[in-house]
């Protein structure tokens, strides 16, 4: 007990005197904050991208493409194929009609607002049932497009990222002019980067005949995937692959998020070395300036472990301050930052917002505490081993 109360006493003295040494502690704090900012910011890109992809996928929807195709871009289904798909069991029904939408997915060249350079914007030809299948999607301004015309509706993110996509504006693309009549949202998911038009119109414009690329269906429930898939795979008339929509989008985000995360961790780890060194320096300085004080404590009978713990605690406290500052800056600076990148699987743009999640902030804090611990270790050992007599004599 005596040992414990000694430790607590010395530690409290140390912590209380931090404000007096703030300027010499700044190196440790700022260094660690820098690492946390970079770590959290880089990982928030991956989080945001993943969230946009995950938000798009529902586990009670299935996407049907040509067998072997891993993205809509490379898939192809004929009109009769899609009719067969719509007869499969397990699809939800709305009265007599099946809740399924045969869709065409192409790319259209439009300038990006931020750079003015052209970008591959995804354009989706939909059927009237598209909003029934994606029951979370809704029109937020303007109105729904009229089927059989050149009217389009644009996703909220697309209208923010690409030029000339406001309600009422016209998009000239080759010989065709599209009129934007509405803006829709879809829970922040990938479709919000898309432009939607009538599938039949798009077939004509892109000279695709009566062909589609995918059929998106609303299942009766998440468990209906099995029978639905079995029926389609067993059907000799068509050759298709069936995937749960959530799996489909999760697979698409995997490559990019893995890449960003590894880059983020490597950079933060390398920076961390410098930050730990900064902390070591700070703590050595702190120990050196208090050598006499520490020696006095030891002469009074405080034991070495108490001194060791107190120095470690100071270092960890400084690191925690740095971690919190870094987390706050990363949150204020990056959370919600809108951007877009190319998704190589679909060869088209995906808009997303950086996401600084609580998990990321927590991880940043854990990293900062670890750096504080590492930085404090050597100075703490030195402080606890300080020879009392020489230290007392020192200035």
């Amino acid at each position, binding site marked *: 007990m005596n040992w414990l109360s000694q430790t607590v006493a010395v530690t409290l003295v140390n912590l209380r005197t931090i404000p007096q040494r703030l300027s010499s502690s700044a190196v440790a704090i700022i260094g660690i904050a820098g690492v946390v900012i*970079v770590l959290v910011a880089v990982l928030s890109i991956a989080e945001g991208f993943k969230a946009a992809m995950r938000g798009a996928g529902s586990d009670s929807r299935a996407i049907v493409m040509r067998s072997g195709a*891993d993205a809509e871009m490379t898939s192809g289904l004929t009109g009769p194929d899609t009719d067969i798909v719509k007869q499969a069991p397990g699809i939800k029904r709305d009265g007599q009609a099946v809740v399924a939408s045969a869709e065409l997915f*192409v790319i259209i060249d439009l300038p990006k607002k931020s750079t003015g350079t052209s970008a591959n914007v995804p354009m989706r030809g939909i059927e009237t049932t598209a909003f029934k299948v994606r029951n979370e999607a809704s029109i937020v301004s303007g109105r729904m497009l009229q089927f059989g015309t050149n009217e389009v509706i644009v996703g909220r993110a697309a209208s923010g990222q690409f030029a000339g996509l406001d309600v009422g504006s016209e998009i000239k693309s080759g010989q065709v002019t599209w009129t934007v009549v509405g803006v829709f949202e879809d829970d922040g998911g990938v479709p919000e980067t898309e432009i939607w038009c009538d599938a039949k119109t798009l077939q004509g414009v892109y000279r695709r005949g009566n062909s589609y690329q995918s059929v998106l269906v609303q299942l009766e429930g998440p468990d209906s995937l099995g029978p639905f898939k079995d029926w389609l795979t067993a059907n000799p008339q068509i050759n298709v692959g069936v995937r749960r929509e959530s799996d489909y989008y999760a697979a698409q985000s995997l490559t990019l998020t893995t890449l960003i995360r590894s880059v983020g961790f490597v950079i933060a780890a390398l920076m961390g070395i410098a930050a730990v060194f900064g902390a070591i320096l700070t703590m050595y300085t702190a120990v050196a300036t208090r050598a006499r004080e520490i020696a006095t404590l030891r002469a009074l009978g405080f034991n070495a472990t108490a001194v060791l713990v107190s120095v470690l605690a100071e270092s960890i406290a400084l690191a925690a301050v740095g971690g919190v500052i870094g987390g706050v800056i990363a949150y204020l600076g990056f959370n919600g930052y809108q951007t877009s990148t190319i998704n190589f699987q679909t060869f088209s743009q995906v808009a997303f917002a950086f996401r600084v999640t609580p998990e990321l902030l927590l991880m940043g804090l854990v990293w900062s505490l670890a750096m504080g611990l590492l930085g404090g270790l050597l100075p703490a050992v030195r402080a606890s081993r300080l020879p009392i007599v020489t230290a007392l004599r020192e200035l």
Partner: protein
Amino acid sequence: MRYLPLVWKNLWRRKIRTLFTLACIFVAFVLFGLLMTIRTAFTLGVELAGLDRLVLIHKVSLIRPLPIAYQARIASVPGVQAVTHNTWFGGIYQEPSNFFAQIALEPEPYFRIYPEFRLRPEEMKAWLADRQGAVAGRDLAARFGWKVGDRIPIQGTIWHPKGGGNDTWEFNLVGIYDGEPAVDKTQFFFRYDYLDENRSGGEGQVGWYIVKVDDPARSVDLAHRFDDMFANSSDETKTTTEKGFVESFAKQIGDIGAIMISILVAVLFTILLVVASTMAQAVRERTSELAVLKTLGFSSVTLLTLVLAESLFIAILGGGLGLLFVWAVVQNGDPTHGLLPMFVLPTRDVAAGAGLILLLGLLAGMLPALQAMRLRITDALRRN
């Protein structure tokens, strides 16, 4: 010069601290080099793209094909040296994650327009003799362990062989192309005539055209000329210089450059802070010594130089080793085995790194050096 031993002695007065500082700067410039390498990879070698080459794509989107008949019309325009076409194949080799570019093209014209891709004459001859022949970049061949003579099956996703059934296309690897370190050696080229004769649907269509012009100064004029030529047809075109094309594609990835640079700023700022505070600490410890030196007749400017020399020395040694390290790694080749289209550290970035090293050394040493210069002997001596 004659104070060098003094600077040297001062540096190693606290060996551990100096080594740590060196390590920090080393790490900072390793990061600098790697980030610049990644940035170059993501900007897809914009610097290397030719200004005398134009890319002609469908106006609506890159994915729309163009008729093969355009080739003769483009070739007839004065000022055009050569024209050829590419078609994206987009197939899967074994696993979808084994992604690499597969392009159907005309071997001879293509390799003439792109002299940076080097293929041995006998390999070119073998290719022209074998309709199913294909060539792969050196990095790509290394990634999958391919050798000349291998048979490579690739599953078609966009293009399907006539007669349905199996989607697999087979190629004979007849050659491996090479090039300078900055050239993309991760592509797979095969013959367009093989694709066109055997695909069901899309016959007589190509992905995009590449035009080599006589005079790069006329590139823009010619680009307009082509677009006007095909205006109001059902397949209108958009022509840009290859450089412009690559640049705008790189921008689609997002502003990788800006992200890399902001990370670097954060990294270098942190390092600068650590190094500067170390230097300040080192000088503070020696206050009384500096005062003695002044008493002995060392001028203020000499003291300033001494302290600055110390910090510059640390910066140059640590940073130089860091850059050297990255350079050595890059010479060793791409550690991701062809995941990045190129893996080079441009000379321009090395120069920028050298500049940053000097700046870091000067900034870190400046404050303590000024302190040393302004030191008043009596105060400093009394303090002890």
